[in-house]
């Protein structure tokens, strides 16, 4: 527990916020989630007012005092302007696509403005957040540019750290409009779940071999045979089947589309099994399996997945591939 003060503060703050501001997929900015406080510039402005007040008081100059009160009133009025600039703005999450762990998740957010409002100079970025003892730096500040539209969709990249369902950090929306004297901001927890697949890591040949042999009934070293790409017999090609399995040579001869049936494909379908990596940490196994799934899917092969408590039958195609990756991503952590 050797956390620096800053880390402790950030941690305390995020706990506090987590209790007070639950995650929602839509937020409307209003008085119960907006904060407002003088900015550094505002502090300087107050200093200027004080200097002018001293000047006016010492010289008994009512006009300078009057100016000083005018500046004070401007500061007061700009509190309202600053608040109403943000008030009514609506933020909602859009569906974001899944990523592999370690990649940048692009969180898509939709900003919708309250009718008739311009919402000028609004800055949006991620709130710095404590995550497993490390403080994540806030991301790049983006500025809302409405360009005369009523809604704006923006992508906010955020680094994913672990596999599973990832929730983005809190979002800071702030504005110094109009005079920069005040900072009005809110920290929102946006419910925008992103599925993070395990990071694909290539296992060594032995492990892959064993995984395949384990899964199939008759032991056979497919790794050596795949290179030769021997096929045993031809079947007529049906629409929808992978194009790269068409026997073009036969087509040239016969003008009939045949499909090459690779021996290992027909014989034993590839099965990705969690149990084929004995003695290896569970996360690492998932990463190996993920790598395998990517590879097999790229080859447009049929494969199945077996995880403790979850089995996905033999299939191929994009949908199957996503299903497999989801299963890997959502595999419970402590098994």
């Amino acid at each position, binding site marked *: 527990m050797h956390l620096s003060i800053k880390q402790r503060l950030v941690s305390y703050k995020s706990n506090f916020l987590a209790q007070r501001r639950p995650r929602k997929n839509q937020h409307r900015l209003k008085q119960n989630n907006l904060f407002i406080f003088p900015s550094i510039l505002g502090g300087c402005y107050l200093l200027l007012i004080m200097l*002018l007040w001293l000047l006016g008081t010492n010289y008994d100059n009512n006009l300078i005092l009057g100016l000083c009160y005018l500046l*004070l009133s401007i500061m007061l009025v700009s509190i309202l302007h600053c608040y*109403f600039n943000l008030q009514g703005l609506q933020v909602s999450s859009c569906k974001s696509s899944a990523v592999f762990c370690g990649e940048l998740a692009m969180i898509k957010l939709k900003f919708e403005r309250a009718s008739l409002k311009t919402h000028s100079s609004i800055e949006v970025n991620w709130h710095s957040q404590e995550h497993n003892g490390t403080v994540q730096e806030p991301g790049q500040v983006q*500025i809302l540019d409405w360009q005369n539209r009523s809604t704006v969709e923006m992508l906010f990249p955020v680094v994913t750290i672990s596999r599973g369902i990832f929730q983005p950090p809190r979002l800071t929306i702030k504005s110094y409009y*109009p005079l920069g004297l005040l900072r009005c901001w809110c920290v929102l927890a946006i419910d925008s779940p992103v599925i993070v697949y395990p990071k694909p890591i290539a296992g060594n040949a032995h492990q892959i071999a064993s995984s395949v042999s384990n899964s199939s009934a008759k032991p056979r070293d497919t790794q050596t045979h795949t290179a030769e790409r021997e096929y045993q017999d031809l079947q007529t090609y049906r629409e929808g089947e992978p194009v790269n399995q068409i026997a073009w040579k036969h087509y040239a001869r016969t003008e009939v589309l045949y499909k090459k049936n690779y021996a290992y494909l027909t014989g034993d379908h590839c099965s990705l099994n969690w149990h084929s990596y004995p003695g290896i940490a569970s996360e690492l196994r998932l990463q190996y399996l993920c790598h395998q799934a990517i590879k097999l899917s790229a080859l447009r092969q049929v494969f199945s997945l077996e995880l403790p408590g979850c089995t996905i039958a033999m299939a191929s195609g994009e949908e199957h591939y996503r299903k497999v990756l989801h299963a890997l991503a959502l595999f419970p952590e402590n098994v």
Partner: protein
Amino acid sequence: MNNRGAKLRPADINWLATALLLAMLPLLNELPWWMLTLTVVMYGWRVQINRKKLLNPHKLLKFAVLIISMGLLAVSIQNIFSLQSFVGLLTLTASLKIIELEQRRDYLLLVFLGCFVSASQLLFDNSVLVFGYTLGCFFVLHLCLLRANFSPLVSALLPARELRKVMVIFLQALPIAMVLFLVVPRIGGLWQVPLNTDVAKTGVSDSLTMGSIGLLSQDYSPAMRVTFAAQQKPSNAELYWRGVVLPYFDGRTWSRQAPQDSAQPAGIKLLAKPQQLQLNSFAKQATSTKYSYQVMLEVTGRRWLYVLNTAVIAPQSSDWSLTQAANYSIARSTPIVERYQYQVDSYLDYTDTRELSAAQYQIYTQLPDSLDASGNTAATNIKSRALGRQLRAKYPESQALIAALMARFNQDFSYTLNPGKLESKNAIDDFLFTTKQGYCEHFASSSAFVLRAAGIPARIAAGYQGGQWSSDSSYLLVTQADAHAWVEVWLAGKGWVRLDPTTAVAPERIELGSTSLIAALNTNMGFVVQLNQLSLVREFRLSWDKVNYQWHRWVIGYDNQLQFSLVKKLLGGVDAWRIGLLILLVVSAVLLPILLMVYWPRRKARPAPLLISLQKLDKKIAGLKVYRRKGETLAALLDRASLVSQVNKGIFSMLGDKLNSALYGVAASQLTDEVSRTRKVSLEIDALIKKIKVN
């Protein structure tokens, strides 16, 4: 905050430079001219750097410029510890900083410096116009502040919209600022500050040289403004604003101090406080009217004040710096370098019957001797002296003598503003026996001389006579053109008595006031005077002066005392809660419209006519105990309803058809557009819904 668009746009720099130049412009009166040039050069340099035509100046060069300009400033401004040098330094900082204008931080610093420079011009001039100008500068500076908040990445607001935003903020802030101005208590100076002592001495001077001015200039700038208490309005002939008394005459010039004791500037005997109070007792006769009035004196650069005749400093006046001399003139311990207000009481009929001491008698009857070329003392103005002696011999009674002298003036002397120059050595002789035309100075000076020659103690009093009442008679404006000089003579048993020889020559000067007289006198005085006489111009001048007077009275002169009485009058008391309530009221008066604007329930968009029909249907079939289920199509709902109520089966099937055609049908002809078609169908549907029979 630092991460927001650190680089500045060229337009920002232009705006800021404009604002700074605007803020510095009025200060050129006080500051050397080269400061503006320096600002323009720095700005030009900066623009060239931004265009990559010039390089950033080297550190040493910048330092050299700083040192040189500081030195120049020290040379240009004589007194280093004065207000001018303080403002000069501030302005110099702002203009030199322009060269370093690179980042947003520099920009903001300059905006704030600009605010300070602009405010400091109010230390030198506090007229309405200058204040308006300063407000304008603040407006532009806040516009710069607003612009600084826009990131260059985003399409900026249009200039018109930026202007509008700042305007709105200013308009909303002004009422709050006014209330703060009214109710926030003034503390008064916290420490001694160098005052702006470097003012030109204007108005009536402390010496009077006869015939030195050939032509009296007509200066209509205000000298003072007077508000009388309780609607008192003395007649014009009573309005002698006595300022300075000139007892010493050296043959040419009447002066306040004896020429020999110029080393002792306060050669005037002061009255002690009890003696001042005694003055009141002289005046307390049954016939006396006490005039209570408040005078706002323009900057004179001199110490004396102007009052009606012999005044008593009002007891409620807390200004202890005022002193009254034995000749009744009132002076302040420091010169009047900014507009000054004082409250005094005057009794117009006033007799101080005390005898003159021998020394005083000697002073007030003294006539100068001057040295002639051979070194012997020779008397000047011999004819005038002889006239005095003749008169004395003829009229032993002083009053008769004075009357004879006045009659002489009345017979063959004339009043003119253009008397021409007089012989410098024997000016009085020249006037009395040769030119016989002049204005108040000539008449007062020569009368006093002749009276002294006749052995009557006499002295010159200088000040103003008359004034113009404002259009609503609320105050009296005295201009420099009302400057006047008259004689005071001492008569046994009566004390010092005012004698105005000008009345003998031109009584209308006193009765009507200088402006009307001059208008009557002159048709060939030149354009400016004529312009001043034009009634329209005069009207304008008077109403403009009224604005100025009210401004000075209520804004510039708004002090704790005035604040107390005003707040008390407005709120019925000065308790903290009343003031708090007032502030709250005003703040809410500003806030309420904004809140209403934001939270006013907006009329919801009317739902489509078909949706309204659907709601009607829902309501109707609820009577049949049929409710629309979630996810149920209309057809399914109508089928279900038909099963429940066989009576309405026909209607339901017709409704189904109609709804289908309303939703999916096409316009019957090109002429009917979609909107009118749906409206028509929904009307038919509504009619059908009405037909549904509910038990």
